[in-house]
């Protein structure tokens, strides 16, 4: 296992190159759900981490910093830099990681600064993902919870030892708080910065040997008043995203991609483009043609002037209507069995009971982060430097190396802030970074040594593929003569996200992408007969994980159908769920809380309705009540009340923000967004006027209630999304008696 990790690490610019040949300290961590995974802590690597990132630590100017491990660096001026292995894309992970370190370090919140970690699978891997550095699956805080606390605790222990030596007292007599060491017996105290030099000379203790705080000792974890440490930069225009990177002599690239997925270049007439002033090069890429110019408007002009014909012989030339027809036909045929409890077929054909069946459909969706994909690449004979907001830095390193034709060791990836992502910047195909690196190679091959910025336009983003897959669910249920659900059969038709990616080995049984059936395979309801199967058609439309992945559509089908079952049985949808989830205490907890806070049983006037959904994803459970008003064909969502159990709430206000934001994201998919292809395979939408997302006017009041918990923290970036669409659809049914089973919801006239 160790050898495997080191081999992989070396491929991704890791620990086998000479400058990384350092004593390593291995420790094993039982990863939740991912078996045994290994984490590495390398002593005294923090400062080098910053150096690797191309910028020497600013806090080193006034003396040597103290970097007891790869995650913490203390400067003589007292600044505590937390090296963050996860991408900050708005989900607040910098705040979370800083909280964990500062808690055990006993640092003052005001002295803590986040800094992005360089790409390095050996030091900065996601402990749930093995030898891969990455941010996704709502794993960041959960995987780093103990690791970052230990990083802080080690630093604190060394500062205490340093002070004990300096003062000639026993370490046990020294107290720490708010970044200050105190020896009450002799009334001595010193700020952390004063002990940095001495601490830097000490031997780093085994992280497992340092004691961690008991929950009742927490003074930062669980407190709601921590402001994000990087909040000011985000409101004064100084936060730097990949598209804001400016390097001396930087050129600008635009890429014209084939309008149909799978098409390739047939003919290129570049004369007009090359005659645009400032144009430096026209480069053929694996998917499209790049123009490189001195200025962005020159590149725009040159791209428009490219005279290209495309070869569509291998391209997708059908539309989403045809794909949907294919899905509906597949839904008539048995698929690969995912789950089979009891005998659902027999229960569904019992003449004594009642059966119902419904089909739910969801469209392709673009992620549409506010910052479109963007990267800067600078290739020289020495190697390539790339700046981008990456959810999968060590995977992108391999992509960049391949596209730039250099060794992975020659890649330096600077992870910048990301202007939203929602899964978009975790692309195994690495589309944007591959293009940027390929362009940099093309430039160097032509003797042009300069950094180049590739910034996608919004049209590039909406039409660039890698969408949330379209999906169809056919669900059948049976109620016994007493109205109790006795059978649940669900057929899923959905493209695989994992297939053809480096993650393919984690695909389950043949024909089953676990991400297509999450939320169905693990249907929590106590129904005695459950059968689920799956079709994974190939369509030619590139797909990708999109905030909450499979849960984004499985919850819509499951929770809508549960509502249908309840109405068919003449049982309150809350009561039926409480009954069928009796063995799931966390689900019961959020259901009770949301019902109480929303006033579930309060009557509503005509045209208004209340709907409920509950769903578990990424280890957390969210229950949502939607209140809607339906007037003619217009659905107005008036209020959303959410209850969440995500284990120990580390940063309650960030949890609230993620549930608010996830709810808005879910409402965009529920009410507005869809991505369709015309009958020739062209994407119909191009920008926010036709790929619509929620705006201020349609945003309801959103109330978030957090279940107190001392369980380990679980996911929070995604779990609020899945219950939104079914809660709203169920509310529309309550308001109108109309069951809407297709997203985005449209009330027929």
């Amino acid at each position: 296992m160790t050898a495997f990790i080191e081999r992989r690490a070396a491929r991704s610019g890791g620990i086998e190159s000479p400058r990384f040949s350092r004593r390593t300290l291995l420790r094993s961590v039982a990863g939740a759900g991912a078996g045994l995974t290994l984490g590495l802590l390398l002593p005294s690597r923090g400062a080098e981490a910053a150096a690797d990132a191309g910028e020497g630590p600013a806090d080193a100017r006034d003396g040597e910093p103290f970097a007891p491990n790869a995650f913490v660096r203390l400067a003589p001026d007292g600044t505590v830099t937390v090296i963050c292995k996860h991408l900050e894309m708005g989900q607040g992970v910098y705040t979370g990681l800083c909280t964990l370190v500062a808690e055990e370090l006993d640092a003052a919140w005001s002295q803590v600064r986040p800094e992005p970690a360089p790409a390095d699978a050996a030091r900065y891997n996601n402990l749930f993902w093995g030898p891969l550095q990455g941010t996704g699956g709502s794993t960041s805080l959960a995987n780093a919870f103990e690791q970052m606390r230990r990083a802080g605790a080690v630093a604190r222990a060394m500062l205490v030892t340093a002070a004990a030596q300096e003062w000639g007292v026993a370490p046990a007599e020294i107290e720490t708080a708010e970044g200050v060491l105190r020896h009450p017996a002799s009334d001595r105290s010193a700020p952390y910065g004063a002990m940095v030099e001495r601490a830097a000379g000490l031997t780093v203790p085994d992280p497992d040997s340092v004691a961690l705080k008991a929950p009742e000792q927490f003074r930062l974890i669980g407190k709601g008043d921590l402001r994000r440490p990087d909040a000011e930069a985000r409101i004064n225009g100084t936060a730097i995203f990949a598209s804001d990177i400016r390097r001396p002599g930087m050129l600008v690239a635009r890429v014209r991609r084939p309008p149909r997925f799978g098409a390739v270049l047939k003919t290129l007439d570049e004369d007009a483009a090359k005659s645009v002033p400032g144009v430096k090069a026209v480069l053929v890429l694996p998917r499209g043609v790049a123009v490189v110019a001195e200025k962005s408007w020159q590149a725009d002009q040159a791209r428009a002037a490219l005279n290209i014909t495309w070869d569509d012989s291998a391209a997708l030339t059908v539309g989403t209507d045809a794909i949907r027809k294919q899905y509906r036909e597949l839904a008539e045929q048995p698929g690969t069995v995912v789950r089979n409890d009891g005998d659902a077929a027999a229960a569904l054909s019992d003449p004594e009971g009642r059966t119902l069946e419904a089909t739910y459909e969801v469209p392709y969706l673009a992620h549409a982060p506010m910052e479109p994909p963007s990267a800067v690449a600078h290739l020289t004979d020495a190697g390539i430097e790339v700046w981008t907001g990456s959810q999968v830095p060590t995977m992108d390193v391999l992509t960049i190396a391949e596209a730039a034709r250099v060794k992975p060791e020659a890649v330096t990836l600077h992870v910048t802030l990301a202007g939203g992502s929602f899964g978009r910047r975790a692309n195994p195909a690495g589309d944007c970074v591959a293009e940027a690196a390929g362009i940099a190679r093309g430039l160097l091959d032509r003797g042009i040594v300069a950094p180049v910025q590739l910034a996608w336009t919004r049209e590039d983003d909406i039409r660039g593929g890698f969408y949330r897959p379209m999906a169809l669910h056919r669900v059948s249920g049976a109620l016994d003569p007493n109205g109790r659900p006795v059978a649940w059969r669900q057929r899923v038709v959905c493209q695989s996200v994992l297939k053809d990616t480096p993650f393919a080995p984690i695909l389950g049984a043949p024909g089953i992408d676990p991400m297509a059936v999450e939320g169905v395979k693990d249907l929590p309801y106590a129904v005695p007969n459950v059968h689920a199967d799956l079709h994974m058609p190939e369509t030619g439309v590139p797909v990708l994980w999109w905030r909450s992945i499979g849960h984004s559509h499985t919850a819509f089908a499951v929770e809508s159908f549960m509502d249908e079952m309840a109405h068919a049985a003449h049982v309150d949808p809350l009561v039926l769920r409480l009954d069928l989830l009796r063995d799931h205490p966390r689900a019961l907890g959020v259901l009770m809380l949301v019902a109480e806070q929303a006033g579930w049983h309060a009557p509503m006037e005509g045209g208004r309705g209340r709907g409920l959904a509950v769903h578990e994803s990424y280890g957390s459970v969210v229950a949502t009540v939607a209140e809607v008003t339906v007037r003619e064909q217009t659905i107005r969502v008036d209020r959303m009340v959410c209850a969440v159990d995500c284990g120990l709430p580390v940063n309650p206000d960030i949890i609230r923000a993620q549930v608010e934001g996830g709810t808005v994201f879910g409402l965009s998919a529920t009410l507005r967004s869809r991505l369709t292809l015309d009958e020739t395979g062209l994407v119909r939408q191009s920008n926010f006027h036709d790929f619509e997302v929620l705006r201020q006017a349609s945003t309801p009041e959103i109330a978030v209630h957090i279940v107190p918990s001392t369980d380990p923290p679980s996911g929070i970036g995604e779990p609020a999304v899945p219950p939104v669409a079914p809660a709203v659809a169920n509310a529309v049914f309550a308001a109108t008696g109309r069951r809407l089973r297709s997203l985005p919801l449209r009330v027929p006239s």
Partner: protein
Amino acid sequence: MARLTINGTVQTLDVPPETSLLNALRDELGLTGTKYGCGLSQCGACTVHVNGDAVRACQTYVRDLGDARVTTIEGVSGPVADAVRAAWLEHDVAQCGYCQPGQIMQAIALLTRQPNPDDAAITAAMNGNLCRCGTYGRIRAAIRSAARMLSLATEGAEP
């Protein structure tokens, strides 16, 4: 050559007159706080002030600016700007933060014209500014807070 007044300073730029203000700011002047989000005035990420009015820099062209005063997130100041920024921090509005310079410029323009906007006025002013992180509720709350701060300051200033 174009002459623009940006954040109180006259700048001479070597750009064609049909260059967008957004490109001029970001690429010529390095004022990257103003963001690109759509290029079509659909998202508001590029909102700046021209003579105090909130405009979309992506659809504003250098040739049309003349002597107009352009203010960006880097240069905006004054009591309204201070109140809006303080309220944004108080409500910890920003998630990724990419759209927030535009949101803030829009909110400052609103509160400058209308110091105590009702909900409908907030909606009308802010509906053109998209946020995919979904911070709309906090933006609304922050604008209300800023309006309160400004009214307290005004009352306090009265003799």
